[in-house]
Each structure stands twice: as structure tokens, then as C-alpha cells.
């Protein structure tokens, strides 16, 4: 029980720390929210009234408490460019990001674990070397650039996939959002045309993100499998005549599942974040593009709101992983 309490306290403190950072950024910002509310042609009295409404003249600790209160009740302020509550905007765009990152992590995890197992079969062999190079390149490649090259090759030159965006214009109004995940929504209504169109738009950005994530997943799967290989139970299984592939899949892999799960979840959290650049390149209407658009419009509440939401997701995914890894592998606790 105390372990759970400890976990909750750590999570709460980390989230509070995140709010300290976003609050500090808002404080340090040269932009004046009151001027934005009142408009730059407002009289001095209107301006002062706006400052009072926003509580800008209150002491710093009071303002921070008010800020935390707002965030906890789901109030992230009003966007300066869309004039909508930032929270409403984010709820609208977030499913697109979640769908992209989820498809990418499923692909990245499957391929990454498979590559890790193949590489561990013959350490220092040819395939191991190739997997190592692939994962090193996956670590090192700038994803916005890889996205551009994919668009150039698979969309512009080969015409294999659809281009930027999430859906072609002709299907734009055929999707009735239920979950906000277009793959599920279109499948739900049996809209084959728009389902395939969604898939065709999704495949390039998802591949770019998947390549990024399979690097760390394959590397860690390999390393932890090799770590198990020398242990007595592995030697015993080998002596008994268990084949190498079976040894890896049924004997070693379950024992490293906790570690592998942790790295997959970490990669997932990073993908939610990495979507910022990918979405910009692919014109993907998710949280990442919402944020970059807000940056160009100097829309401070939207930028900081988006940062906070991504940060909270990141922190929570990390914390849940911690728990999951312990359930899968009780030795960790």
C-alpha cells in the first residue's frame, strides 16, 4: 500500500513541478495578457480593469495557486488566435496525435522486438551488425527531414501513398467522428473508401515515427536478451536441446518483458512529443501542429497549454509504465 502511496506522491509532485515550469514561462514571457484582453487601443482604465480581471497584480504565490486551480478544473486559458478555450481546442486536435502515435508505436514495437530477437540470435554476426546500424540511424535521423524525403519519394515520385493531411478533400465530410480515431470511425461505419484513404495518409507519418522508436526498442531487446543468455536456466534449456529461436521466444523473452515494456512505453511518450515535428511536415491536424501554429501566431496560452498537456501525458505514461513493469516482472519491486 505504501508503495502505491509513494507512487502517487511522486506523480503529484512531478506534475506540480511541470506546472511550476509552465507558470514560470508564462511569467517570464514578454507578452502582456492584459494588453491582449483589452486590445492595444484600450483606455488606461480598461487596461487596468483587464489586469484586475486576470489577477495580474496579485502576489506571485497567489497567482500560482490560482493557476494550479485553473489547470485542475480544466481551464487552460483562452487562445489568442482562435479565441476558443485552449482546452476545447486541444480536445478537438488531440485524437489525431493519439491515433498517429499509437499506430506508430504498435508498428515500432513489433518490428523493434523482432529485430532485437533476430540480432540476439547471432551476436556480432552480420545480421546483428545490420540491426545495429539500422538502430543507430534511427537514433540519429532528424524525423522532420526523413518525413520530407518520404513525402518526396513515396508520394511525389512513386504515388504509392497520399500526401500531407489526414484525409483527402473528397472524403472530408464523410467521416462522422465517434472516437476521433479516423481508422476506427471509418471502419465503424463501413466506409471502405475513406478508411483506405485514412490509411494511405497515415502510413508515411506513422512510418517515420515508428523508425524513430524501433531504434531504442530493438537495441534494448537485444541487450537484455543477451544479458539473460549466460544465466543457468538458459544454459539448462540449451543443454536440454531447446532450439535457439524457441529459447529466445518462450524462455528468455518473458523474463525481459518488464524491461522491454518500459522502453516501449518510454518510446510512446517520446512519440507523443516527437509528433510536433512530424505533424508540421505532414500537415497532420494534431496537437503538434496546433502548437507550432500557435508559436508562429505568438499565441502564448495555446503554446503553454499544449506544452502542459503533452508534458502531463509524458509524465503519466512514464508513471504507469513503472507500475506495469512491476506487474509484469515482480522482481523489479
Amino acid at each position, binding site marked *: 500500500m505504501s508503495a502505491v502511496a509513494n507512487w502517487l506522491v511522486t506523480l503529484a509532485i512531478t506534475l506540480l513541478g511541470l506546472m511550476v515550469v509552465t507558470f514560470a514561462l508564462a511569467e517570464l514571457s514578454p507578452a502582456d495578457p492584459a494588453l491582449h484582453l483589452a486590445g492595444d487601443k484600450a483606455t488606461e482604465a480598461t487596461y487596468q480593469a483587464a489586469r484586475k480581471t486576470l489577477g495580474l497584480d496579485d502576489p506571485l504565490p497567489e497567482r500560482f495557486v490560482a493557476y494550479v486551480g485553473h489547470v485542475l478544473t480544466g481551464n487552460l486559458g483562452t487562445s489568442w488566435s482562435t479565441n476558443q478555450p485552449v482546452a476545447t481546442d486541444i480536445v478537438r486536435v488531440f485524437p489525431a496525435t493519439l491515433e498517429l502515435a499509437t499506430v506508430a508505436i504498435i508498428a515500432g514495437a513489433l518490428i523493434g522486438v523482432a529485430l532485437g530477437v533476430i540480432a540476439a540470435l547471432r551476436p556480432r554476426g552480420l545480421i546483428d551488425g545490420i540491426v545495429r546500424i539500422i538502430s543507430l540511424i534511427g537514433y540519429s535521423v532528424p524525423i522532420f527531414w526523413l518525413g520530407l524525403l518520404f513525402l*518526396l519519394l513515396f508520394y511525389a515520385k512513386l504515388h504509392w501513398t497520399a500526401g500531407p493531411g489526414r484525409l483527402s478533400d473528397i472524403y472530408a465530410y464523410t467521416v462522422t467522428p465517434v472516437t476521433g480515431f479516423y481508422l476506427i470511425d471509418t471502419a465503424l461505419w463501413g466506409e471502405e473508401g475513406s478508411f483506405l484513404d485514412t490509411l494511405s495518409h497515415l502510413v508515411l507519418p506513422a512510418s517515420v515515427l515508428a523508425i524513430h522508436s524501433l531504434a531504442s526498442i530493438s537495441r534494448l531487446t537485444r*541487450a537484455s536478451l543477451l544479458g539473460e543468455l549466460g544465466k543457468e536456466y538458459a544454459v539448462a534449456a540449451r543443454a536440454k536441446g531447446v532450439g535457439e529461436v524457441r529459447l529466445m521466444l518462450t524462455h528468455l523473452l518473458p523474463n525481459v518483458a518488464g524491461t522491454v515494456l518500459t522502453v516501449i512505453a518510454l518510446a510512446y511518450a517520446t512519440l507523443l512529443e516527437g509528433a510536433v515535428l512530424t505533424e508540421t511536415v505532414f500537415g497532420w491536424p494534431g496537437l503538434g501542429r496546433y502548437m507550432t501554429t500557435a508559436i*508562429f501566431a505568438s499565441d502564448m496560452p495555446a503554446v503553454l497549454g499544449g506544452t502542459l498537456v503533452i508534458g502531463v501525458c509524458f509524465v503519466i505514461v512514464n508513471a504507469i509504465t513503472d507500475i506495469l513493469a512491476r506487474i509484469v516482472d515482480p522482481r523489479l519491486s
Partner: protein
Amino acid sequence: MTNLPLSVPVAPNRLSLSKFARRSPSAAIGAALVVLILLVALFAPWIAPYDPIAQDIANRLMPPSAAHWFGTDSFGRDLLSRLIYGTRPTLMLLAIVILLTTPVGIAIGIVAGFYGGMVERILMRITDIAMAFPKLVLALAFVAVLGAGLVNGALALALTAWPAYARQTRSETVSLRKSDYLAAAEMMGITGPRLLFGHVLPLVLPGAIVRMALDLGGIILIAAGLGFLGLGVRPPTPEWGAMVADGTQVIFDQWWVAATPGAAILLTSFAFNLLSDGLRDLMDPRNG
């Protein structure tokens, strides 16, 4: 060399250069690439065939040729020269990030690991919190709020980069605390800062350096991402991320404008990752 009866191995074996290359070819190749990139940055004015910011509108968007090996961009500037000068802001940013983060991270790690107790708990709590922050998005918000530029970009990255060193240094310091080596130093009356920074620091430094090499590849990518979003150094200073962004408009017709700077980012990040990968192998043979 006589073996001293120490309870803790205090330093990795010293390696000669050729032994180093034989034991880890990837570390050697990575190191060679990093040195090459450093030299290019240092001697950029002598290597670059053209002025990187001189515009030549008549020769804009030229394909690669004998005169312009990588072609020209939409202002007619020589891409090769801009790539060569582009090493400078990238390495400068890395240098600032390293200067800002390693002293802070290592100091926190040593103090926490050596004194333990309440000090350790508080310092490590803060470290864990900062470690759980999303790097790219916080850097983005930081630069968006405080203004674009090299120094702000470095500050933004430093904000989330220091905890890794603190954690690593703390765990190494904890294991050193029980060593005969430190007991001997303390018996000679060495205490306080002199003990921490004269005796503990040299032993935890190699680990921190490996850890740093591990991070640099990622930091290069985030910095390039900031440049790509227009939040890096101001134009017309050549910066690789911003150059990719410039090339985005003409990607379908003049692909080389975006492709070449991206390749430079990949190569630089790859060099650091290869180096750190090899260094890790040398330190921990299990990863082999």
C-alpha cells in the same frame, strides 16, 4: 603495474589509441568523424569555396555541378559552403549546453551521493522531476516564449539535460563512498570541497563523459528541430535545421536544397551516437 588491494575498481584501464581502435571500431570511427566535424567548423573560412551568405539570384536553385557541388539554394547561395559553416552554430550550441549542464549535474550528483540522507533525498527528488519532463516540447515552449536564438536554445536544452549527469554521478559516488581510497584520503585529513572535487570528481568524470556523448546526438536533433521550426539562430546565418525548412518549399523540384543539410544533421548525430555506443561497449562488455 602492481595491483593495489582496493575494494572498488577506481578507474577504467587506460587504453592506447591503437588498442582503443581495435577493441571498439565503432568508437574509433565515431571519434574520427567527430574530430573531422570539429576541424571543418574550425577551418570553415578556408574550406568553404564561397561566402555562405553571399546571394547570387541569377544562379538560384542550381542543381549540383562542378562549380557548386551541392547546388545552390533559393537565394543562389552555395549549399556546400552553407553546410560547412553550419557546423559552427551546431557545435557552439553543444558546447554551451555541455558547459551549462555538466558542472551542475556532476556537482549535484557528488553532493547527493556523498552526504546521503535528507540532502540526497531532496536533490534526487528534484532530479527525478526534471528528468520526467518532455525535452523537445519544453525546449520549444521555452524558445517560443523567451525568443529564438542560439543562447536561448542552449538554455532550453540545458534545462532538461542536467538530470542525467546528476543521477549517474550520484550512483557512482555512492559506490565510491565505501572505498578504501576515500577512507585513506579522509584519514589524511582531506575533507569538504577538496575531498569532493579533488578526489571524488576525477573518478566520476569518465562516466559523466560517456553519459554526455550519449546525449549529444539527441541534443543535435532537438536543436535542428528548433531550427527547422524557425526558432534557432537568426537568418541569414547558416543553420542546418533552418536550411531544411528553406528547402521544404522546393522539395518536389529541387530536393537537394533540403536533402543535403538533413544529411549533415544525420551524419553529425550519427557520429556522436557511434562514439557513445562504442564507449559504452568498452565500459560494459555485456552490451557487446
